[in-house]
């Protein structure tokens, strides 16, 4: 259809996002294209006196983003914790590893969250643990994202034999039980650090990223503008990086956020089972220790409940923000 007159959003959405139906089905159910078919834009005759915005697509995105309760609340909570993770250790009253007080002392004025079995300050440990958990989550997400996207793009764009081979490889990785692998590896390592845990998580979670990216790439490579790029003599990597990936930008963003959340959770799981870093405190290790030292039986609730609550809040806030972001990116999910 000729985009002659300034038609309204609904019709443009219907017309120009129609080809993206299948993209929304693949993978995540989110429309990957940022604002495709978004509002009519500037370029119309001046003197329209539009109320708030120049009609720039980014502005519209921001407009909806700020209005989305889930996104805003989720981000707010997350931001609070991130700030605490960064600056917390600076304001923590005590060294988390030092024995600073009477063991198993209930929360009081000196020790805001009490002390643990050994006499360490739980409150300070919480800050350090936050930082640790975030670090592992970040590393894990980064690694998984990089590897997953590389493999996903390659398989999705090329197809054919390369795709088959990469699929087999992906499936093998998926089948390996990560917990068992971690236990086995841990038996051989003298000590484990944050870096190891992060990389391990990355190495075991990239398959789902690869699959999702591959599915989206499959659909995007059928688009006419990819054909046009080929007709302009462009090379495959250039097409992937400049044409395909940017059109999946919102989807990739969501994927990364989810990865981050799941990495944190996975790390907490491993730590809780005692497979976490041996030389640092994380939220999960706090909970692990509390179990090992019978905090439950001894009613030392302040040792394991705070880290558990914090983990839950971090991950939940991320997921909620993710849902909100999904709504912002995909005009059809919006409530208005």
């Amino acid at each position, binding site marked *: 259809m*000729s985009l002659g007159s300034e*038609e*309204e959003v*609904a019709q443009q959405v219907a017309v120009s996002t129609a080809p993206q139906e299948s993209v929304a089905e693949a993978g995540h159910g989110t429309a990957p294209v940022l604002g495709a078919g978004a509002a009519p834009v500037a370029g119309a005759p001046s003197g329209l006196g539009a109320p*708030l915005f120049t009609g720039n697509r980014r502005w519209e995105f921001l*407009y909806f983003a700020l209005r989305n309760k889930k996104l805003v609340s989720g981000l707010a909570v997350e931001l609070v914790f991130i700030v605490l993770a960064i600056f917390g250790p600076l304001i923590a009253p005590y060294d988390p590893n030092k024995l600073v007080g009477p063991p198993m002392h209930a929360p009081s004025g000196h020790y805001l969250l009490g002390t643990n079995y050994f006499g360490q300050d739980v409150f300070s440990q919480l800050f350090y643990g936050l930082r640790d958990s975030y670090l592992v989550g970040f590393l894990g997400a980064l690694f998984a994202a990089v590897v997953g996207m590389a493999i996903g793009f390659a398989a999705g764009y090329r197809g054919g034999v390369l795709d088959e081979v990469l699929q087999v490889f992906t499936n093998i990785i998926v089948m390996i039980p990560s917990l068992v692998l971690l236990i086995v590896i841990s038996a051989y390592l003298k000590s484990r650090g944050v870096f190891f845990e992060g990389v391990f998580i990355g190495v075991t979670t990239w398959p789902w990223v690869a699959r999702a990216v591959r599915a989206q790439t499959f659909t995007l490579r059928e688009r006419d503008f990819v054909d046009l790029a080929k007709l302009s003599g462009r090379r495959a990597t250039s097409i992937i990086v400049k044409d395909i990936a940017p059109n999946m930008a919102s989807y990739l963003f969501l994927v990364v956020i989810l990865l981050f959340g799941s990495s944190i959770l996975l790390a907490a799981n491993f730590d809780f089972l005692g497979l976490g870093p041996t030389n640092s405190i994380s939220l999960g290790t706090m909970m692990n220790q509390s179990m090992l030292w019978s905090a439950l039986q001894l009613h030392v609730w302040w040792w394991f409940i705070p880290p558990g609550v914090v983990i839950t809040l971090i991950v939940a806030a991320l997921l909620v923000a993710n849902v909100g972001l999904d709504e912002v990116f995909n005009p059809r999910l919006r409530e208005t």
Partner: protein
Amino acid sequence: MTLDVEALSVAYRTLRGDVRAVDGVSFSIADGEIMGLAGESGSGKSTLGNSLVYLEGRMKHTGGTVRLDGKELPIWDQRAMNAYRLREVSVIPQYAMSALNPTRKIGRMTADLLKSRGVGYDSVVEEFKRRIDLVGLPQNVLGMYPFELSGGMRQRVTMVISTLLNPSLLIADEVTSALDVSTQRAVGEMLMEFRDRRFVKTMIVITHDLSILAQIADTITVMYAGKLAEKAPASTVVDQPLHPYTQLLLASLPEVGLRYDQAALVGIPGRPPSLLRPPAGCRFRARCPFAFDKCAEEPPFVELKPGHQVACWKAAEDAAQEKAARQAVPAGRGGEPAGAGAERAPAADGHGDEQAAAVGARAVPGQ
């Protein structure tokens, strides 16, 4: 069943204001009439047609009334309209071919749809099967999934389902656009068939393709930028169009048999105006080769000749002149009035159809 639309206005809500897609449109359709609603994209024809059935999402009713057989249709009230949909008014939506649920077999999907309208599937299944047969589909289509059917077959299935409860008014929105030429003809003839058999009493066929309308429609209404430009019997619109937009549109249609070295086609320069802040006066003014001062004022959609409504000052003036000239000649002579200009279609005596056709269809005045 008659349809009377009075000053209907429908707008789309956007961040930047209301886009007035349909702006004060009035027309009537008689019982058994197939009205073709023609226009280009952005003219508002789809909005107009769909607003009679379902005001979706961002559409809002900003004025006017719609009366079906004298009874007012509450198009702004989704819930109230539920009672009418599929029974009294029905629509074959645009992209009907993709409108079928891909995970349901056709028969099951129809049963679900009917149930939502409070109609038992069993009570209509016999008729359903007969109609499936009528449109040339095999009976086992009821047990098939939509992806097993070709585009044309899906289109026909949608047509049958939409008309199953014999609605009084059917809106067919671009039903022939995505089809091959032979299926197009079959579907067009099917629409006429449905009307002849009284499955549907009145039909509005929305399309950008005037030639299809010339085949199947009784009357053609041409829409431009949210307003009606011209409404007349189909043959009149095609042979003796009065509105410059219609004339130019017809002049841009290639006919089989004409090559570029025989008759150069001409398009219409420019683009339709923004419907967010529509210009004052005639909306076609900026692109019209005949525009003059009076066009700064919006022309009313009036009947200039029997059964022929036009919204154009120039056409109105020409019609007035012709009327005056005819009154100057004593009635009964039946000849061409003295001083008749080449542009005046001699409708009075029925001669010169070819002349009128040449002028109306092929001439490109002022280009």
